[in-house]
């Protein structure tokens, strides 16, 4: 069983305990307050009525607390329900002498419950083992984020020049892969490759970023094309593409004369 499965099961067990303490136990005890033992003999009926009472009373108490204090936290419910359950139990058991649980019956049913829980646990472990052994992790569970940012760290909409100022870009990769992964990058226009960035390796959860500034030789090619395209390769295989339109706001005569 891996750590994620164990975490899921721990969360599940915590909720199960909360469910018993907040709804089932107070509800069952409250059912004796509303309907003393002689009135309801059918145990399924008693449990059903008890769970119903537990649910409606929980909502009722919760809403009263919200209306009174303006907020509600689980511990507020816990204190009220825990204390009222104890008071009701003491009153029923020791003052009214009501036989809520027969001790022998309780022991036997607890034993049965534990046997079944043991079986269920074996089932969970078996299911988990079979699944882990037979099903490979699917690639869809793992991915990497590939992005471009402008110099302000915001999502850019175009690559542009304003007079002689050429916009700089940040290119980044965040890995959510299963293991250490090797990436490489190609930057190109619609027609030609501008440059290839050396490969880099990042761990799961790690981020790689690089500031991209283009040389004076690359700019005419960029500004004559429509898009600047960034291709990401994972372990030498094409992985994904992002792109940005090129927007020539002002022509820079000096720059253009150098190439033409």
């Amino acid at each position, binding site marked *: 069983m891996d750590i994620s499965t164990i975490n899921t099961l721990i969360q599940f067990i915590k*909720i199960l305990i909360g469910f018993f303490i907040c709804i089932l136990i107070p509800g069952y005890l409250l059912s004796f307050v509303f309907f003393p033992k002689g009135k309801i003999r059918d145990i399924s009926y008693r449990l059903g009525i008890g769970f119903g009472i537990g649910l409606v009373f929980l909502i009722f108490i919760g809403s009263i607390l919200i209306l009174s204090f303006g907020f509600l936290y689980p511990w507020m419910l816990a204190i009220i329900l825990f204390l009222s359950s104890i008071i009701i139990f003491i009153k029923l058991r020791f003052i009214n002498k009501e036989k809520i649980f027969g001790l022998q019956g309780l022991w036997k049913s607890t034993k049965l419950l534990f046997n079944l829980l043991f079986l269920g646990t074996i089932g969970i472990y078996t299911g988990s083992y079979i699944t882990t052994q037979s099903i490979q992790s699917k690639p869809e569970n793992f*991915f990497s984020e590939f992005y471009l940012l402008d110099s302000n760290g915001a999502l*850019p909409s175009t690559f542009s020049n304003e007079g002689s100022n050429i916009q700089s870009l940040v290119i980044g990769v965040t890995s959510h892969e299963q293991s250490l992964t090797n990436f490489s990058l190609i930057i190109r226009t619609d027609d030609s490759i501008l440059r290839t960035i050396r490969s880099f390796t990042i761990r799961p959860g790690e981020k790689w970023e690089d500031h991209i500034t283009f040389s004076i030789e690359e700019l005419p090619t960029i500004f004559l094309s429509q898009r600047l395209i960034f291709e990401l390769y994972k372990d030498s295989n094409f992985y994904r593409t992002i792109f940005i339109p090129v927007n020539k706001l002002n022509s820079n005569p000096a720059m253009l004369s150098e190439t033409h």
Partner: protein
Amino acid sequence: MFYERFTQQGNSHNYYLQKLSLCGYILSIGILLGSASSLHRSYQDSWVLENLLPQILLVILFFSIYVVNENRLLYIVISVCLFIFSVRALPGFKYINPYGSAIDQSVHWANIQEMSNFGIPEHGNVYSDEPGIYILLIALNLLGNVTTSSLLRFGPAFFLSLSPFFIYIIGKSISKSNDQLRFIVISCVFIIDPYFLVLQGSTFGTFLFTILVALISNRNKKYQSSCNTSWTILLIIGLYSLTITHAITSFITGVVLLVIWGFHTFYNKVFNISQNERHKGVYLTANLGILSLVITLSWWIYKANLIINIVVEKSAQLLVNFLNPIRPPIPPNFFSLNSGEQMVILSLYHLDFILVILLSVIGFLILLGSSSNRASKLRKLFIPLTMQIIFISILFFQLVFKIGQIEYSRFISYILIFSPIFIGETLSVFEAFLKHHHLTNKIRKFILSASFMSLIIVAFIQAFPYQPIVPKRAIINDSESQPIVYLHTVLSNNQISMLQFVKNHLPPDVKIGADIVTFNSAIGFWGIEQTQIIHLQRALPTEPIQNGKWNIFLYHRPGAAGPLFEQLEYRNLAVNPFLSLPTNWSVPYDNGGSFVISR
């Protein structure tokens, strides 16, 4: 006390089969949940039962064998509860994010998140003023450190799995026969409402409505007459709890209870029914109906102004658009399919409902046809039967006049609540029929188990629809065909990563839009307030998104990142942004499933 009760009702001749099938049942549930939790998927796969089909078949097999061989009612009720729990919680075990990416689930996520942090749901949404659901769910975080995601994944399944107990109470008020009660409880496995696996507002509304009907059904029973005050207090608290959990349901409850009373009065006058033969419990419904309406309207006026505005708005829409429906019951694309494909879609959406209605009608006809105790049985059935008839009539009326403002599926859920009572009648007659034909005990039980198994499998075609058989159509600029509709809505890590990234890198003063699923995910992940601060807008399902309305648009490809709710004709950009986008648009972020476009 529990153990004594079990053994008193026990039957020794099938002792070993009973014990073995119980062990097999518990073991198979463990295997199913263990397998599901080991998958921990963070993306949308083909369907919920991918890699879990043999395990769930095993559970159905052992369940069918066990309930046929078990005579102790408490054991049957608990085993049905367990079955419902394991089925409903399955997506919670399998997927690491909460199942469902419609607006309701996202709003619930945001509200529970806010309630866990600040003790109060977010303001400005319909559910802010109906905190009942959140009170129930945060109570489960008693031990602390339970994440919002876990509360949403497992919480509803815990509550909803208790419904067999309430159906048992309703059944008990109608039938004293243990055999019939057994089948009524077993029939609870067929209650598969249209929002079976996801948390909707009406999920808990319907659930509390079941409790309320259980209380009403038992209020006037003779042997409980000395506890009438207790029942009355419980009913009042129950009505209040329903109002603050789902006020629309409590409003509908009030109206339906008054209609029942009106119907009963009219029936008595027309047929001159004597005082002795009248149904005593019906007079209670009039009081409760009025009380329910008073509590609901008081809550709306005092606390829930937003809801009352919506109710008024919808009512006005209903009157203005009576002949021009906003939400037709059948999407127009359905008619473009051939008859075989229409059958597939119909089965995936409504096969269980059709099965339930069919079995219920058979049960009702059997009841009408039975010579013994017919009048007495119908009198006992009066409240659930009348409710069933009213809800079916409303649904029929809605379908004929195409009124979608008050939702079609809500009434399907209400109808399903009472169906076990009638299905129980059908199944018990089926068992009596087998007994009558002098079949051996083994053969009779084998036939019953096989029948249960087949019925559950048929019902599960709707509960876990198989996405790959959904008909596909080609869309513009795309060689691959697309399913005409997506049936599963898993919130994926691709969406969450994109939303996290955009939150940190959003340029100032831009108009930002999102496709429907991404918008809903943003509400859950960012919270309602944050979504409003950045003015995130949702594109319509029929809206081409590169039309210049937004500077930045959050989008995703159909597949691992989740389903697309957009109509087929408007999905080409999602499928291939590089080819479909005009040249002045960019894709500055892509994680394989979700991406951002900007201009």
